């Protein structure tokens, strides 16, 4: 029977982990999560692996497969080539809890700091708005909070810059682009949330399992909105003349 060879990151959550090799019988349509479940049930019951929906909807099984951030339940083993060993590691941007489980709690804290939806003044109820006005926000609402984009972002991963990361930029952009919302979050994003640290290298967009065009549709537009406020010499001169502080 054909075998799937895996090398899996093991750790107790403290210090450096190690890699352990496993070999699992291949089944038609097997995913990396399927292989890990086989290991957990038959080869080593102490393996910690997190999953929930097995349908790419919950984001629990986010990990790094052959060093590329991906959902284990959405990655078929054949797609990785049957004759090579598959490396499975936890998301490295976050503290490791055990084995393949990392703790992305910081994301919920960041999320809490993003200015919440605030309706425009004087709106008549019921609110009426059209599909074409919320299409852009809806793209971002597809997000399943797997945090793979955060994990692949070199700014989040390597540099302590205070940048909130791509997932949170789309969260803010979804509110910003909503026709009923009154706030301008690009001021917050560019000033406090470190959007300037993103150098639009698009890795987040490349790994997103929901195919959200994070950089093109959220980050760049928010940078352009920020440029209106912070880098537009005309707007700056007018504000200066009027004696307004920018």
């Amino acid at each position, binding site marked *: 029977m054909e075998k799937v060879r895996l090398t899996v990151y093991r750790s107790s959550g403290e210090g450096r982990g190690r890699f352990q090799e496993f070999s699992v019988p291949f089944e038609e349509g097997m995913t990396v999560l399927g292989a890990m479940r086989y290991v957990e049930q038959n080869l080593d019951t102490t393996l910690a692996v997190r999953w929930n929906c097995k349908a790419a909807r919950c984001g629990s099984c986010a990990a790094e497969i052959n060093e590329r951030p991906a959902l284990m339940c959405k990655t078929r083993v054949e797609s990785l080539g049957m004759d090579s060993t598959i490396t499975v590691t936890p998301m490295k941007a976050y503290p490791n809890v055990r084995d393949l489980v990392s703790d992305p709690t910081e994301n919920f804290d960041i999320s809490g700091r993003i200015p919440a939806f605030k309706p425009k003044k004087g709106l008549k109820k019921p609110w009426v708005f059209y599909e074409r006005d919320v299409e852009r926000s809806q793209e971002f609402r597809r997000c399943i909070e797997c945090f793979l984009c955060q994990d692949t972002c070199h700014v989040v991963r390597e540099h302590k810059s205070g940048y909130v990361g791509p997932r949170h930029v789309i969260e803010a952009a979804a509110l910003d682009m*909503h026709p009923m919302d009154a706030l301008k979050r690009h001021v917050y994003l560019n000033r406090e949330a470190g959007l300037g640290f993103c150098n639009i290298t698009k890795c987040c967009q490349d790994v997103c399992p929901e195919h959200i065009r994070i950089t093109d549709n959220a980050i760049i537009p928010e940078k352009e909105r920020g440029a209106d406020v912070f880098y537009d010499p005309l707007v700056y001169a007018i504000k200066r003349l009027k004696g307004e502080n920018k």
Partner: protein
Amino acid sequence: MSLKKIIPPEFLEPNWRLWSFVLLIALGILALFAFPMKGYDGYIDPFYSPTVVILPLIGLFRLTCYAFRKYYHRHLFGHPPGCSVSERLNEAKRAYSGETGFFRVENLHRYFMYFSAAILPFFFYDFYLSLFWQHSLALRFGSLFMLADTLAVTIWVFSCHSVRHIIGGRLDCFSCTFASRLGGSVFKFQSRLNARHEALAWASLALIIAADLYIRALAAGLPLDFTILVL
């Protein structure tokens, strides 16, 4: 230390995007400074349209273009060298300021875009001029070449992210006023081109260089041109 350690690994990879950019830019610099040539036989070289004075602005437009930014941040500075590399070069030890330090200038992209958009008509004008040749109206192969490069540059400039912002991206509501309805429709159409912005950036640069080389080849006496139609 071996040479392999000094040269970032991505320079040793067969990376056609990076190398084609390096080659195209090197050719562009040669064409501009080492071997300037304004045109030949009714064709005006795209580098000299309309005048070499505004070229630095066009250069800055290219350099601050989101597509080109991605390439040099990734492949020249290695921030990041790749999306899936686990142990990255020196990790946290490398200084990094993103677009908050020197690269703040990227935010001026739209102003460079205004200048570049302003010279686009000159490219069309040059195409028009190339049609009048030896006192008759003639369509030559070289004119088609110039038209192709003009169209590529125009579409690339139009697909710019700053254009996207200005024509409609800055609006939160597309159906609120007549102007925003119009903006919304243009935005939708432009977004489709914008999705191909990187490819267009590459194609337009390649075609400009190709047109320049073509005119140079004609000037050097290579029999590459032929007349398609004379009126």
